């Protein structure tokens, strides 16, 4: 059995498999199905509560318009944190905001939570007006958020990038330059669904975020581009459904991966991915999972 330990900067993972923000609740929703301590980490939202409705199934994917309206970081710290802090895996909090101050304030508060080793700055959510995506689609604004948060946040800072851009490497380099410890990509692609019979958009917000296997080829390409452009670790995600997909992301250059939409179809998928990576490593004679990172032969 190969060694699956992976470090992302200061963050030590028992294996490279994490779950993606917005798709794994607080983890507890999945505890009937799997042992949470078997995965490398889970990314949860600091803000949760009363989001907007609606999703639409699409070919090999889904659109969501969940948005980020919710009870805020204080609610998270007081009500949620106590009940999840002893889950034996890395808990990464996904942070969003509509102003730079939002991000900074939230990051500062989370900095003091002992059992939260990392935050993931979501500058890429397509579902909120001024709610992040605008920050992630231009270098100066992405750089600014990261710079300000870096001043107050001392633990591992992951920056989650938007795929809705012309040149994602450029944005990645910009946030690296401001002190991001690692980047994760991709967030959802901006999409739309229409009900032809009713002649109306399916989503209340008209457009929403596309995820699932449909986007995997795009995610894989971006992970490959970004990992060739920056020196910090890259966390890959977008449409991962099984261990083979996860391995493809690592070969493209990802140090770790996250699983989102697939959790809905198989709530135990993340542990299956851990097992599958293990089998692959054994079969191909690798001793350590890190041997896969960027091991694509061109």
């Amino acid at each position: 059995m190969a060694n699956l330990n992976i470090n992302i900067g200061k963050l030590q993972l028992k294996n490279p498999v994490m779950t993606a923000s917005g798709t794994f609740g607080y983890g507890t929703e999945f505890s009937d199905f799997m042992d949470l301590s078997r995965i490398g980490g889970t990314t949860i939202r600091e803000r949760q509560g009363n989001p907007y409705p609606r999703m639409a199934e699409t070919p090999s994917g889904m659109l969501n318009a969940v948005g980020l309206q919710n009870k805020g970081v204080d609610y998270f710290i007081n009500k949620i944190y106590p009940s999840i802090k002893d889950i034996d895996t890395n808990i990464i909090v996904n942070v969003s905001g509509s102003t730079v101050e939002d991000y900074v304030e939230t990051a500062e508060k989370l900095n003091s939570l002992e059992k939260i080793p990392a935050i993931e700055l979501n500058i890429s959510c397509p579902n909120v007006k001024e709610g992040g995506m605008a920050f992630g689609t231009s270098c100066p604004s992405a750089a600014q958020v990261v710079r300000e948060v870096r001043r107050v946040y001392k633990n591992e800072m992951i920056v989650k990038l938007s795929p809705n851009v012309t040149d994602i490497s450029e944005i990645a380099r910009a946030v690296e330059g401001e002190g991001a410890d690692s980047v994760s990509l991709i967030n959802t692609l901006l999409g739309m669904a229409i009900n032809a019979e009713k002649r109306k958009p399916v989503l209340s917000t008209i457009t929403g975020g596309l995820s699932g296997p449909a986007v995997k080829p795009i995610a894989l390409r971006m992970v490959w581009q970004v990992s060739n452009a920056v020196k910090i670790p890259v966390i890959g995600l977008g449409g991962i459904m099984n261990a083979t997909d996860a391995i493809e992301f690592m070969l493209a250059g990802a140090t770790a991966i996250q699983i989102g939409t697939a959790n809905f179809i198989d709530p135990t998928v993340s542990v299956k991915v851990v097992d599958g990576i293990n089998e692959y490593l054994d079969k191909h004679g690798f001793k350590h999972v890190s041997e896969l990172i960027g091991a694509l032969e061109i």
Partner: protein
Amino acid sequence: MYLSLYLIDTQYNIYSMKKFILDLIVKKNVLLSNQYSLIILTSSEKLPEILPGQFAEVRVDGSNTTFLRRPISIHYVDYETNELWLLIQVIGDGTKRMAEVKVGETMNIILPLGNTFASPTRKDAKLMLIGGGCGVAPLLFLGAYFKREGYEVNFLLGARSEADILQKSEYERFGNVYITTEDGSLGEKGFVTQHSVLKGSNFDYIYTCGPTPMMKAVASYALKTNAVCEVSLENTMACGIGACLCCVTDTVDGHVCVCTEGPVFNITKLKWQI
């Protein structure tokens, strides 16, 4: 009104219930009409405890265009024969494929999901279970439960015409069955809320599931007659277990997930314009 007790009861039940991912085996697939199929599933293991009103998330294997699981109500559970019944109405590709499953195939199912209906505290309370179309599905299991608990059960089933009145003899095992059809081909002609049984007597508890306009009409009748009324809502669901937050509905407590806080809601919790 026994609302708070009901809430405590329900919450207790749901949150203590373990969920399972099961590969169930198709034992029978009965075509009930050109639109509806009754699928009877079984397992070599004993089926877990399931409450009336709960639903399952069914993985649809073998459909090129279906990606997510599909939420389907528990129509009935027969613990003696270890059978789980699903009633499927063909809407799109997912339900079409489900309606075509062959005996011996397995279906991957997550259950039990969601909450349950509230039981009246008094055994002599008058109950009416009103279902329309495929919404009759959860009421069979609910009626069976109520009967076992010692209540007298009334069903009022509505459909477009006789062919769409499903499983009539099954409902008759557990209570009185009243029927309306829009074309008058069976029972009284008209909509469920026009049935004479609703005019003749007052009910203390009304449980309903079906198309939203029907449920709203029933809710409005319940409000007028001071009955406790619970409705079972549908919603687009990606996960069914509270992880995605895609299935929210607006309530007096704000936006809540239908898959975990529902599908059953007391109408006093909903922000319906009725």
